[in-house]
């Protein structure tokens, strides 16, 4: 990962780690302590650091999510400030996917990330580290992770067949099996490397967001890495790692024997990022803090992932799902996402968390008295009912019960202080307790009823075999196809990427050229050069987009680059352009993986088109500089209109 180092840290640097934990963690703490202390000092003064640079071009990027301060450092010039910031956001996204609403409580998250059991903590950090490495590798080599949109394998007939197979055969069979352990398959998809061959969602499932799908692809790749770049003529990931070690500030100690099945299978890439969280005292009921297994050694045990669910009454982030990753052949994977019982608890917890957060905000703004906590009366009865449900389901909730009783005494009793600022600590306390319930239900190994919640290993195996049989004849074709998805037929056009931001999908000719499959670009340095240009172009366009510019052309060296972002309605009619908001340099990175910029952009744009579905597209092209601009623009126009024709079959 190009000699960069991502350093997560709690803002309280005083309480330091336990005896016996690797010494470099402590030395990192000492080295960064002045920065961390100053960060919180400046924050209390109302401003805080976002980045530093030095004369030898080292870059430091800092960002705080809730109580977690992330510091990312690059010293070899391979990554820019924007890349580091993106990495921090992606890391945060992965932690949200892994820990869900536990991330909403600083205390609880700290417990998770800095478990007392050194062995367990090490395992978790190894897992996070390897996720980050996998992401970095994809970000540097895979176009779909460059632009953060899912790439489909373009083969409409096979795609249709597979979807039908997933629906009629696979999902139906699993969901009607007695061995499903109370789980229900909501989504099933087949990945060829990082490309999507087929995606099926059951009727009662909500749409899987592009952000979550990309995060799941990272996880799948982390478990079963494609060796797609082994025969790549330019394995820059290997080059960069060899040079990166000496640029970082320390050499991580050799990792202990790896017991983690997920990371032991993948090759080591890049220098090792190091995370560290310092653990201050946590005021939390110990009853809900039983030891957790984040990466279970048993491959049949699914990964718990927390994904966004859209319901009629709104969006519910971080709802619990299980993820089953079933390898079919090297490079081809079947992924199943299931929902399990009690997930209604997660929705209730989220609703209550939201209510207390809103109340806290109102109280902070000094409005508590005027509203008399009107919405809280409704919450009151719901929460009372919720507590009864928890008890019925055998979920430990005595701490929550106690805090809630105290809260009610203060807020609702006649003699009590009512809705004043004094209630703020109790709001916080309630939120922590709610997160504790959530953690107990969805992050611990066994559910409240102590039954193993997963599809039985036999059922998983049968699912795997079924899909293998179905795709047996297609296997080799798919692996080749995934490397040469589409080809182009425009003289002078060197490369393009087209993205449908409404669906989070992209199309582009392949850039990873192997001995067997050669694209228009040929092989070797030229292809590598174009690849580098493409990568820097994407970062440039994002910079301008951030400042409100949605069209860009650049004459750079021997090449001519174009970038367009535009809106259409569903019938493909171009909608009028509208100035898009400008944002500060340190705002969330533009993309769909960590924070979905385009969803916000669409929402902003749709204000002028109420009731009408709006689509958003992007096109990037690279032409030879000698081609007249009129021709280049003509190509761009043709690409824009052809690529997303209803048949979804690009006429190239």
């Amino acid at each position: 990962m190009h000699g960069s180092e991502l350093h997560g840290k709690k803002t309280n640097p005083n309480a330091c780690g336990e005896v016996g934990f690797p010494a470099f963690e402590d030395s990192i703490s000492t080295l960064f302590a002045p920065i961390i202390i100053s960060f919180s000092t400046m924050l209390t003064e109302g401003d805080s650091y976002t980045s530093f640079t030095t004369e030898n071009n080292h870059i430091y990027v800092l960002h705080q999510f809730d109580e977690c301060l992330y510091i990312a450092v690059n010293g070899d010039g391979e990554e820019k400030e924007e890349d580091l910031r993106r990495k921090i956001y992606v890391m945060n996204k992965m932690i949200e996917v892994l820990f869900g609403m536990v991330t909403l409580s600083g205390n609880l998250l700290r417990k998770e990330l800095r478990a007392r059991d050194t062995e367990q903590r090490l395992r978790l950090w190894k897992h996070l580290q390897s996720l980050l490495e996998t992401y970095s590798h994809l970000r540097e080599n895979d176009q779909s992770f460059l632009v953060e949109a899912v790439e489909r394998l373009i083969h409409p007939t096979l795609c249709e067949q597979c979807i039908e197979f997933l629906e009629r055969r696979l999902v139906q069979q699993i969901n009607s099996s007695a061995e499903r352990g109370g789980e229900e398959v909501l989504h099933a998809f087949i990945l060829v490397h990082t490309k999507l061959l087929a995606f099926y969602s059951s009727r009662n499932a909500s749409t899987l967001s592009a952000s979550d799908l990309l995060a799941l692809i990272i996880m799948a790749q982390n478990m079963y890495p494609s060796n797609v770049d082994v025969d790549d003529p330019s394995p820059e990931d290997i080059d960069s790692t060899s040079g990166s070690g000496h640029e970082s500030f320390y050499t991580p100690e050799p990792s202990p024997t790896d017991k983690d099945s997920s990371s032991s299978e993948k090759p080591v890439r890049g220098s090792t990022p190091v995370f560290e969280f310092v653990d201050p005292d946590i005021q939390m009921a110990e009853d809900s803090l039983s030891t957790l297994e984040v990466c279970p050694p048993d491959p049949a045990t699914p990964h718990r992932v927390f994904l966004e669910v859209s319901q009629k009454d709104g969006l519910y982030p971080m709802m619990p799902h299980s993820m089953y990753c079933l390898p079919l052949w090297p490079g081809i994977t079947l992924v199943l996402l299931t929902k399990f019982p009690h997930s209604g608890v997660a929705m209730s917890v989220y609703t209550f968390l939201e209510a207390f957060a809103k109340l806290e905000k109102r109280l902070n703004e000094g409005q508590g008295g005027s509203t008399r906590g009107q919405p809280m009366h409704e919450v009151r009865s719901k929460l009372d009912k919720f507590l009864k449900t928890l008890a019925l389901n055998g979920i430990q909730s005595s701490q929550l019960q106690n805090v809630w009783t105290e809260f009610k005494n203060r807020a609702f009793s006649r003699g009590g202080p009512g809705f004043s600022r004094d209630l703020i600590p109790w709001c916080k306390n309630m939120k922590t307790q709610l997160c504790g319930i959530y953690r107990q239900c969805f992050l611990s190994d066994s559910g409240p009823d102590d039954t193993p919640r997963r599809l039985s290993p036999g059922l998983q195996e049968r699912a795997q075999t079924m899909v293998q049989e179905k795709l047996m004849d297609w296997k080799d074709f798919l692996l080749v196809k995934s490397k040469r998805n589409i080809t182009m037929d425009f003289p002078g056009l060197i490369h393009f990427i087209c993205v449908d931001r409404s669906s989070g999908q992209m199309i582009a000719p392949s850039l990873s050229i192997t001995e067997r499959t050669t694209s228009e670009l040929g092989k070797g340095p030229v292809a590598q050069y174009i690849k580098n240009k493409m990568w820097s172009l994407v970062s440039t366009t994002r910079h301008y987009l951030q400042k409100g510019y949605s069209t860009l052309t650049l004459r750079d060296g021997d090449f001519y680059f174009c970038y367009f972002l535009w809106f259409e309605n569903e019938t493909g009619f171009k909608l009028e352009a509208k100035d898009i908001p400008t944002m500060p340099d340190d705002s969330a990175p533009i993309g769909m993986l960590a924070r979905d910029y385009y969803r916000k952009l669409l929402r902003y744009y749709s204000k002028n088109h109420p009731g009408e579905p709006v689509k958003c597209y992007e096109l990037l092209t690279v032409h030879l500089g000698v081609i007249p601009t009129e021709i280049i623009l003509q190509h761009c126009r043709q690409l824009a209109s052809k690529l997303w024709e209803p048949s979804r079959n690009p006429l190239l």
Partner: protein
Amino acid sequence: MAELLQPDSRMCNYFFLYDGSKVRGEADPTRDGICYFFPEETPLDKQELLCGQLAGVGRCVSELSSSPTRTLRLRRNKFAIRMKDDFFWALGCSVDVPTVSVSEFLDQLIDLFCFYNGPVRRSYQLNSQETLAARWARYLSHLQSGSSELSHIFSCLRTIDSTNVDPLLLLKAALILQACQRCPLVLAGCILFRGRVVSTQMSPGLTMKVMVHESETYTKAQRPNGTSASSSFSGTVSSTTVFLTTPELQDLQSAPVDKGFSCPTTPQRDGPSKKTRLSRTLSDTPSTESQLSNPSSSQPPQKAYLSPRLSDLDVFSPAPSHSAANSLNPSPQSLRPSLSNGEHSVEDETEESRSRNSTGGRSQIHSEGDGSVFEEDSHLNGGEGEGAFGGVFDFQAVESGNEQPHDDKVVEEDSSVSCGSVSGHNAGKSDPPPLLPPPHRLSDASEENALIPMTLYMHRVKGLVLALLVEPHFMSDATSMEEVYHSSLASLNGLEAHLRTISPGAPGGPGPYTFAHFDCVQSTLTTNLSGRSGGAWDQPFVRATSLLHSHFCNTETLQEAIIRSASTAVYGTRSVAQETYFQQNGGSLRNSGIPNHQDSAFSLPSKARHRLLKHGVNLL
């Protein structure tokens, strides 16, 4: 001057100098380390907070990376940082300002301080903190003053609007400078008018530094007691010690200014054999144009009285150039009396100095000069107007002084450091700060960072200033000084009179297009943007220009770019020597968004090429 008084506050929200050596122990209060803090009215605890935190983090980062920290960015402020020895400088501005520009601004500010005060550590040993605080404040306000956002983006020199000025005047200014340079003690000079550059022989960086003193003496001159000039030169000459870096000095000494060829007509005569321009002056381009256009255009009246003047000329150049300047006056009749009134004393002095000179070792200059003058005289009589200026100045074409090895100067410089106290010569002169350079080369600087004391000589004629960088003993060399003074006085008067009458161009509303053209070599900016008006139509252009400029700075291979939002489209193009930005105003942009060759943004390059030709910007 009023135009100089509106600081663009966005460029600098905070500036401070913090001396870490003063705060070593745990118990040392942070305030002991604060040498200067802007804004000065900031409460002390806030000052301590910022200095303490930023200096602490800066040090930590530089230790982690084994390299000085360059920028510290916060959510709401962006700080350019410089760390040297134990000093820590921070300049904070709004996050919208390009990082390149803030860093450049801070460099300029520190360089400026060193230029007038020498090494920082030494200045703080010799002067009180208050004295130096006043100077930091002055330099800061000077750098911030009067310029538009655009000029901050490019860190460019403020120049007179050459589109409003007769090119002949620019040529004239260049010639005055060349004449002065004939004195071997003069390194280089520039002419400024009301805080703007008319002509300069120095690098943009040096010119910028010199301009601070100019604006300062100008302000003082406005006040009754402020003048600090030598009594013997009618209260118009002043000098101050300045410090040049070794590269700056080498640059000046090796500049293509060949004193033997200090004639602008030479290149024309010599044709291609002439290897470089005479000097880097603002007027180079216009003067060439004027020379070419003169014979055919409005110049004939000159000759009528140039010749008579020349005939009664002595060897000194001021008279002819003076007459040349005045020759532009509409009424030849009124010219004579006014001249004689104004110049008699000068001529007396001239006589005096000449006699002195003739006894000195440089009499040959005059004989050489004489010969030249005659040559030119006949040349003039030949009727070529263009020769009028160049010719007269050619009188010492082969001046031996210029052949003097420059090494000598360096050697001399050592012994002449004590000439920092040049005021001995001009008893009344008190303008230089009470700072006396030590008798040795300033030892606390490493060899490449050495600062070499020189003298900045200034001759003011109302709003016009002739600023010369001279060897320190120039001020004690009465002969040289008088020679330079008198050789330029009349010309300066004439130039001033003309420049004064030029009315500034009308600010005007938004034209059909907006452009900015930055000359990277001369660091000058040409734009039709209405300066400080800050009009709503300017903002999108300035913002886009700022983004594109940063992009050009960071991407060497980038040649041109069009960026467009729904409401604005700006075209930017650059070469090694220039950057040009163009925006079409009025009329809504058509067909934006989806790729469309009819999108009006894509016609910008051809429009720019077309429209900017008349501004002398050639994009072909």
